[in-house]
């Protein structure tokens, strides 16, 4: 016999609505509408012999009906249902539904924009509080009263510095190459290829080296800080520190901040040297500039001011990366998803802060004439 589609036959009686469930119920079809219950005092459920509900569509339909009956204080007689279905319905109704959490209606763009703005605004006091705590921690460290673990610090120094060298080398080399190529194409029109050395040296040492180092550290080290501290939050490891009276700022944040602050200027300098090397390679092999000539021009172009400004910028970017990574880690919730969000947020916050501070510092130094 071919399957008949799901249907409900209504048999209104005096004060009683008799519903006969029939056919094969599955989710791919349009289910019958819920019946109107106005003026009804009892609903009696019956079933045809050929009734099939392998996917639970009828059960879901009946659950809606039962909840409607409960809401309108209408008696429901389910004795006419097949035994298994009747038991499942009784089981589903055994615990009354709680009011629950209202549905999340944040799909409207303007509403989401507003909520994001409010969240960012609420983030500011937390960030200020975190800066205050870190400052207090630095004060304790200077007085020799912080729970600072030197062994962790040394490990972090290695992780932030030497272990970042391969990726820093690769990126700096490529950026140096791009800078040299772009400049050389223009300068070659005037026969001034030798000034590739000036462009690359000043560009890499003063601006791009620090910027690229900051971005690399944001993606590599800042994200790792957020993930490490966030996971410790999830595993109650930070609670374990607190129950011993150990400050998570002293144990986790200060070593990371100081390790990055010490390593970033060196990485910035290194990125500059690698970039200059890449520029020299391009200039000598593609544009016919002599290696000694290029080196001499580089030495003429570079000054201590450029080097110190580059290192200062790198240090600022490093501090911002450490701050964002540790802050997001400490703010992390207690789930795996929260760790992912903290990590993403750390990278986004770091890059945003680096970009803003790069603009401010560049304008500031230009205005100061250095």
């Amino acid at each position: 016999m071919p399957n008949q589609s799901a249907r409900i036959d209504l048999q209104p009686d005096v004060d009683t609505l008799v519903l006969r469930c029939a056919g094969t119920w599955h989710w791919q079809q349009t289910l019958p509408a819920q019946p109107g219950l106005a003026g009804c005092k009892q609903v009696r459920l019956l079933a045809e012999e050929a009734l099939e509900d392998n996917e639970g569509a009828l059960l879901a339909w009946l659950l809606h009906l039962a909840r409607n009956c409960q809401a309108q204080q209408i008696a429901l007689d389910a004795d006419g249902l097949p035994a298994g279905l009747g038991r499942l319905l009784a089981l589903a109704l055994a615990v009354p539904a709680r009011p629950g959490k209202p549905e999340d209606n944040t799909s409207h763009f303007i509403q989401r924009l507003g909520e994001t703005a409010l969240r960012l605004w609420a983030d500011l006091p937390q960030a200020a509080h975190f800066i205050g705590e870190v400052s207090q921690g630095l004060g304790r460290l200077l007085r020799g009263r912080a729970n600072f673990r030197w062994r962790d610090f040394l490990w972090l120094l290695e992780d932030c510095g030497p272990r970042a060298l391969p990726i820093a080398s690769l990126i700096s080399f490529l950026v140096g190459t791009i800078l040299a190529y772009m400049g050389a194409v223009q300068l070659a029109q005037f026969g001034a290829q030798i000034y590739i050395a000036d462009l690359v040296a000043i560009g890499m040492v003063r601006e791009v080296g620090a910027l690229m180092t900051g971005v690399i550290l944001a993606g590599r080290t800042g994200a790792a800080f957020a993930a490490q501290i966030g996971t410790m939050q999830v595993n109650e490891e930070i609670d374990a520190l607190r129950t011993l009276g150990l400050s998570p700022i002293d144990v986790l944040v200060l070593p990371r901040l100081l390790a990055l602050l010490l390593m970033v200027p060196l990485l910035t300098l290194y990125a500059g040297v690698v970039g200059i090397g890449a520029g020299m390679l391009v200039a000598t092999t593609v544009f016919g500039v002599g290696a000694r000539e290029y080196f001499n021009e580089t030495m003429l172009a570079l000054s201590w001011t450029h080097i110190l400004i580059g290192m200062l910028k790198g240090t600022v970017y490093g501090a911002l990366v450490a701050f964002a990574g540790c802050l997001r880690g400490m703010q992390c919730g207690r789930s795996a998803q929260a760790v992912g969000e903290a990590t993403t947020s750390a990278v986004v916050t770091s890059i945003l802060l680096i970009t803003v501070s790069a603009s401010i510092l560049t304008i500031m130094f230009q205005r100061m004439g250095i």
Partner: protein
Amino acid sequence: MDTPALSVRGLTMAYDGRVIQQDLDFDIPRGQIFVIMGGSGCGKSTLLRHLIGLQQPAAGRILYGGDEDYWAADETRQDALKRGSGVLFQGGALWSSLTLAENIALPLEEFTDLPAAAIREIVAVKLALVGLSGFENHYPAEISGGMKKRAGLARAMALNPDILFCDEPSAGLDPLSARRLDELLLELRASLGSTIVLVTHELASIFAVADQAIFLDAESRTMTASGNPHHLAQHGSALVRHFLARGEDA
């Protein structure tokens, strides 16, 4: 009569403005195993977080040694009170970047002037007490869940605390490991006279180890029963009786 190890007076706990439990009043006697029990979501672990100073009460007081209000003390004193108690967290909460020996040594290195050799000896003893001799150089990721809990217990005992707090110690363990942990707690109480506060809803553990217990009810949001669990099995509240019924049968 001894002053209680810890007293709770009129404690109300709230989260996001929602009251979880209110007007809690009880004493934790010294040298006993005290169980906080109740169904899922009744606030057992939250109460523990209040007792160990991780969460501030919405109202009420937590008195250490019977009369010292934890939240009225200054930060330095609070830290000292915290160090007088050890905590075994639900998953062990071992610091994952440190070996088991380093986990146990950390509180000793931070808060005592003991020489390194003495710390090594203490670590070895604590690990032996929980049956983990030979695992000194293992990292938490290299051992099983039950071993993590035992190592967490060893770390909680590192500073010889007056009170030991354990959050669901047997949760997620097989029956044999759970029983071994219960026996360990009984041993600690018997041999060291430790006061142990246990948060659990594992009935077998409750009947095996508890001297005293309180029952938190999620519906009424308050403590509905207190006393010895064997007596509570005949309690006037049907909810408490039903909660404990299957454990007595077991």
